[in-house]
Structures are given as structure tokens and as C-alpha cells.
């Protein structure tokens, strides 16, 4: 630390060059911050902390195939099951297909299975008692400026009403929010009563899309899942039960292998960056050979010269990288405020910073190590005489 001033002045010996290199580093880590934020958002969708004690049961054939409602009491009777609820995908459109958000018909007790969502008791009761009632997440309510008491018209795409009309109207009776800000992405949803859906819809009466089971003991997940699937084994509606996370992870991976795409881009970016900063560091050390020799002459050990050059390259990376990540944080923050939590961008928080810092140090070491070794090994006599 006592050499900080020395490292700092060595870094800014050639101002223009250092600033240009810093800007390159900055661009690379700005990109890293943005892409890692996207990757984290997709990963979070699958791996939220909440929901570890819930199982989801869908048709083994596909998520789109309905299950009979008669399974409900049988699942409830499986030992280790605390509570069972069910839901059905509705797929309605609000005004324009571009406004897409998930909307589902859910059982009365559905929200009780989600302790991570906050909904006032009054609104909870209102939802249960209003036939055409609906609740939405706060993110969604803010996006369309909905207030409790509003009527929300949805255009059905899959389930017309009994008379063939596609127009469904719901009364907004409650707005819930996620207690953990990390789960804000899940607020982008509308729920309405399954009983209303079942009675008014032309298709699929008496069936549900999926069952959601709360476990009494989360360690029993595998056993309970197998027991539930056994209920309908070899029937014409076989089920597949898995943890909510496993289900979401498989679902998200259907869009694309986000990790692979992000990884490939960052690979190209960092490869270029190593070459670029490596070149800068090599130049910087080459120019300073006589100075390094002077340092050695006045008593700096080989090891401290090595340390000085390595710290210089690490400082270069840390400085540019930290500014880049900070800008990424601001950009992500602005986009999230403008577009709500509907865009797949996670806050640039602790884990992203940790990964970023680790990368800065790693790249700092890679680009610094060769010039540093050169500085360490130089012989004073040769260096001072310009050989």
C-alpha cells in the first residue's frame, strides 16, 4: 500500500495511452455488467430462493394438456402433502398482443401457497368472494396504471366464453407485491378465479392445467413427487411432478441457452481485451526499463519490482472495470424503472460485482505477468546501459 503513489504515477506516465486503455476496459466491463445482468435474470427465474417447498404436477405429455380435477382429493391424501392448489393458463390479451403478460385462472387458495407475496387480508377475502375478481402484481399494475376497482378487459385467445365471444372482463380487487425485491420479475402476472373460468369457458370444464403442492417437509420432495405420479401411472392422463424450480429452469431453457450465448460473447470480448491491455502493459514496461533498473539500484528487490508492475496492471483493470460496472448498474437501473421488471435484467448487485472483480484481477494478472517477469529479471547493468 505504501507504494500506491508510485504505482499510480507509473500508470499515468503516459496519460493519453492509459486513458484510452481505461476506456477499452470500461467498455468491456460495461458489456459484462449488462450481459451478466441478463444471464442472472434468466437464472433467477429458475432458481428463486422461495418455492423450494412446492411441487408442480403437470401432464406427462405436455404442459398444454389438461388434467382431470378429480385428482385433487387424491393428491391431498398423499402423506407429506400440506396443501394443494391448482391453476389453468388463460393466455388472454390486454388490448394488443405486444402487451403480453401471463394470466391464469387459479383456485381460491392459490395465493395462500405463496408466502413470498404480500396481499392484504381484506384484498385476499375480496378475491375469494368476487366471482369475476382478479389480482395483479404491482409491476403489472404500475405498467398499465391499474387501480383496485378497475375493470380489466382481456381478449381470450384459447378459451372463448360459452357463447363464443372472446371478451372477458375482470374486476381488479387486489394488488400484491413480492416481499423480496429479487422476485419482482414474478409480479408481472394476473390471477382470476378458476370457478368463474370453469363455469363461463366453452372448453375444458372440469379440468385444470396444473396442480401445485406445498410440502409438509421439503426433504420429502422426491418421495411425495413419486407418490403423486403413481396415482395416475398407466392411466390416460399420466402426470409428471417436479419441484417448482426444476420446472421453471426447464421452461426457461426452452427459449435459448442464455448462458452459452453470453459466455461466447464475453469470451470474444475478454480475449480482445487481454490482447489490448497486454500490449499497453508491454509498451509501458518497455519504455520504463531504465527506470525499473534505477529502482533496483536504490534497493528494490526483484520481488517488489514484480509486485509493482503486477499492481499497475491490476489497478488499470480495476479502475476501468469498476467504472464500467458502475455505469452498467446505472443503465440497468434506468431501464428497469422505465420498462418495469418485465425486461429480463437483474440488478447489478453483489454477486455480479464479485464475478466482475474476480475477472478484473484475473485479467490484470494475465496481462501483467509477462511484463512483470521481464521487469523482475532485468539486469541492472544491461538495463542502465540501454542494452
Amino acid at each position: 500500500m505504501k507504494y500506491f503513489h508510485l504505482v499510480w504515477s507509473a500508470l499515468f506516465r503516459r496519460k493519453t495511452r492509459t486513458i484510452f486503455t481505461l476506456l477499452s476496459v470500461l467498455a468491456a466491463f460495461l458489456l459484462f455488467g449488462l450481459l451478466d445482468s441478463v444471464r442472472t435474470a434468466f437464472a433467477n427465474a429458475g432458481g428463486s430462493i422461495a418455492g423450494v417447498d412446492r411441487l408442480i404436477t403437470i401432464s406427462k405429455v405436455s404442459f398444454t394438456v389438461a388434467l382431470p380435477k378429480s385428482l385433487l382429493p387424491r393428491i391431498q391424501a398423499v402423506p407429506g402433502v400440506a396443501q394443494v392448489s391448482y391453476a389453468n393458463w388463460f393466455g388472454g390479451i390486454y388490448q394488443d398482443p405486444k402487451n403480453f403478460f401471463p394470466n391464469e385462472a387459479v383456485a381460491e387458495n392459490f395465493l395462500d401457497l405463496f408466502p413470498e407475496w404480500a396481499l392484504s387480508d381484506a384484498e385476499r377475502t375480496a378475491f375469494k368472494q368476487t366471482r369475476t375478481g382478479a389480482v395483479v402484481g404491482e409491476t403489472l399494475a404500475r405498467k398499465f396504471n391499474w387501480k383496485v376497482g378497475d375493470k380489466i378487459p382481456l381478449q381470450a385467445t384459447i378459451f372463448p366464453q360459452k357463447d363464443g365471444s372472446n371478451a372477458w372482463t375482470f374486476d381488479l380487487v387486489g394488488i400484491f407485491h413480492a416481499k423480496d425485491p429479487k422476485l419482482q420479475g414474478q409480479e408481472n402476472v394476473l390471477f382470476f378465479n378458476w370457478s368463474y373460468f370453469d363455469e363461463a369457458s366453452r372448453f375444458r370444464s372440469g379440468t385444470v392445467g396444473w396442480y401445485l403442492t406445498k410440502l409438509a417437509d421439503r426433504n420429502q420432495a422426491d418421495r411425495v413427487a413419486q407418490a403423486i405420479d403413481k396415482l395416475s401411472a398407466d392411466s390416460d392422463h399420466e402426470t409428471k411432478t417436479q419441484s417448482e424450480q426444476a420446472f421453471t429452469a426447464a421452461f426457461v431453457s426452452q427459449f435459448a441457452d442464455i448462458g452459452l450465448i453470453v459466455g461466447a460473447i464475453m469470451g470474444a470480448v475478454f480475449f480482445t481485451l487481454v490482447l489490448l491491455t497486454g500490449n499497453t502493459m508491454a509498451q509501458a514496461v518497455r519504455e520504463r526499463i531504465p527506470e525499473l533498473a534505477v529502482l533496483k539500484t536504490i534497493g528494490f528487490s526483484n520481488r517488489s519490482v514484480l509486485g509493482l508492475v503486477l499492481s499497475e496492471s491490476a489497478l488499470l483493470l480495476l479502475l476501468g472495470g469498476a467504472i464500467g460496472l458502475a455505469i452498467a448498474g446505472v443503465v440497468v437501473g434506468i431501464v428497469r424503472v422505465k420498462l418495469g421488471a418485465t425486461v429480463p435484467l437483474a440488478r447489478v448487485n453483489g454477486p455480479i460485482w464479485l464475478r466482475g472483480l474476480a475477472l478484473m484481477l484475473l485479467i490484470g494478472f494475465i496481462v501483467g505477468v509477462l511484463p512483470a517477469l521481464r521487469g523482475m529479471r532485468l539486469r541492472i547493468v544491461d538495463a542502465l546501459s540501454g542494452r
Partner: protein
Amino acid sequence: MGGLLRKLGSATTLAVAVIVPILLLTALPWWLLLALIGALAGWMAVTRTGRQAWSVTQVGIATIPQRLGSSSVVVVGIAGVVGVLVALLAMGAGFETTLRETGTDDTAIVMRAGAQTELNSVLDHDTAALVSQAPQVLKSAQGRPIASPELVVVASLAKKSNGLDANVEIRGIGERAWDLRPNVQIVAGRRFVPGLRELIAGKGASGQFKNLDVGSTLKLNGQVWTIVGEFDSGDSHNSELWGDTDVVGSTYRRGSSTTSINLRLTDAGAFDALKATLASDPRLKVDVSTTREYYNKQSENLAQIIRVLGTTVATIMAIGALFGALNTMYAAVATRAREIATLRAIGFRGLPVIVSVLLETMLLATLGGVLGAALAWAIFHNYTASTLGANFSQVVFAFDVSPALLWSGLKWALAIGFVGGLFPAVRAARLPVTAGLREL
């Protein structure tokens, strides 16, 4: 006065550095670039200043091997930008092309009103029969309408890549479907026999999912189905499994209902008449569109997202590469300061110096652009991937690294090279001769 002029000079440089790349990226056609190169060559061959520029450029290029390390920063940096840009755009273009080629103007698709996609649609048997009888539907040699009642359902199968379950689309087709889509070829095995639990797998689907080879079986709702063939349609149907509509319907308990009617029009101009016919029949509540319109609409959103993503990523990378190029070229100008000052002292003008540094940078940039584009082409051309499509199932597509994309990648390279070379070039030309001569 001199200070003001210098300031004005750098304002001009800045303006040029902003305007030229924008023109380059948005408006430059290839023939204009060729014309510019031609004009430059002519100028270099004929005029005195031009000949000076040529000789200075030659010296610059000849010394590149001495600065291999720093010159490669320009090349590799720009190659990275162009490679990533071309690869991402090729992904979007591939998806768009696959869906665009699925539709034609002379075939139409009819679904329940408001359904948007086939998976959401339900049509009863009577509707299907009524729609097929419309006068605008082409008749086969036997006098039967070329219309295929189709049933789209989804099955969840394990993917080869990660073993995770993903959705594959199963399309029950009518017997006229083969006349409707003459481009479909059976590449292995045979067609399914109507009435049996047999499926044929599209080339894309069998590449992406486990256990879809000819001869393998899969269990749907407790019933065993056999894969008896593999087909290639060259479009998004390649992502599907095909079977007999009635048999698929019974396995999925759909009765005699279907999800869409696909039909061939008497000619492309008959579409409006068909639409009017269907709309005027009070027994029908259906939407009709040409298949081209239907499939084009499915690619719009994703293609747009990929375009925005690709351009954003490439822009940020380009900024990084630009500063790398600036560093390199400033260093190059600095090492050649004495030589440039000598040239100026013996009467060379500023313009040849500017041209030579610019040309050198753009040459390196072109090299990087070609390298990046070539890498993107070598790695990603026809690389297959899949994503979730409109029918809630995987759409398999191949990356499409087209000449147009390679050209736009090259334009990006030239734009970065131009800006990266301009400032060092101007610095070189402005270098006071006396100071330059004293440089080591």
C-alpha cells in the same frame, strides 16, 4: 489567431469523425465504395500530392511488421466486433428466414377467430367441412379440394443438448397435406399410414430431441407411437412431428375437432375473395390469413429483439476496439515522428501524411473485418439452434451468415478504422517539424 484556427481544425476533425462513420454504416452501397477506391487510386496515380501519399503509405505499410504486436490489437479488436455482430445478426436472420420460407402467398390458414396461433385454436368438424368447400380452394385432379384439416398439439421430450424436457410440436395432417406442401421430402423410412399410431419426424426435430430416429417409439397419454420416417421440408415444419389428424386427435382426446385448416388457393389473387366468402358466412367464426403472413408475424418479435441486442453489444465492443485502435495508431505515429517530420521538411504536404495514416488504419481494420466475418461464417454458418416458437414448442433454425451480413460487418470495420485512424493522422500532419526532428 493560430489557436483559433487549430481549434476550428479539430472541430472539423470531430465533425468528420462523427458524420463519415454514420454515412458509412447507413448509406454506403458497395458500388460507391468501389468508386471511392477507384477515385483514390486515380488520385494517387495522377496528381503530385497523390503520388506523395502513395509513397508515404508504402513506407507505413512496410513498417507494420516491426509493430506486429500493437498492429494486431487493431486487427483482433475489430475482428471481435465484426464476429460477434455477424454471429448475432445471423441468428436473427436464420430464425426469420426459416419462418418466412414456411409461408407462401397461394396457401392460406384458417383458425378460430381470435386464436392468433394454431395451438390456441379449436375448429369443429362442420367448420372444417364448410371452409374446404369455399370456391377459392384449388381442386385436385380427382376433383377434391386441396385442404388439410390439421391438429397441432405439443409433447414434452428430452433434448439431446442438455437432457432437459422441451416441447415438440406434433401436427396431425390430413391426406391432402402432401399436395399442399409439395416441398416435403421423405429422407428416411416412409410416410405414416393413416389410421395407425405412426409419426414421421422433421429433420430439425430429430436433430434436437432424443429418441426420434426411425424405428424408435414414444409414449403419449399411455399409447405407444412409432417413428416410421424422417422428412425434410426446408422450413419450420422441420421442427415438427407429423401423424394422422384423426389418430392424434383420439390420443389427445380432441374428438373430431382440429386446430386449423390449411388450404391451397386457386391462385394468389383469390385470397381476398376467400376472406370475403368466409366472413359472409354466418355459420363461421374464423380468422383467415395467407400462410406467408401467418409465419412472418411469428418471427417479428424475436428478430427485432435479436437485432437490438446484436447492435447494442457490437456498439459497446466497437467503442472498446476504437480506443485500442487509437492507442495503436498514436503509438505508430509517435515512433515514426522523425520520419514524418523529415518528409515534411523536404516539402511533403500535410494531406499525404493524413491519407497515409488513415489508409494504413483502414487496411488493418479491413483485415480485422474480413477475419471476424470469416470466423463467424466458419463457425456459425448453418449452425442449428432452437427456441420457443409461437406454438409453445421448439422451432429449429440454422444461423444464416448471408453476404449482406458480411458486408455490413465489413462496413462496421471500416467505420471503426476510419475514426481510429483519423485523429492520429491529423496529429501526425500537425506535428511541428522542428519538434519532430528532435524526437528520438
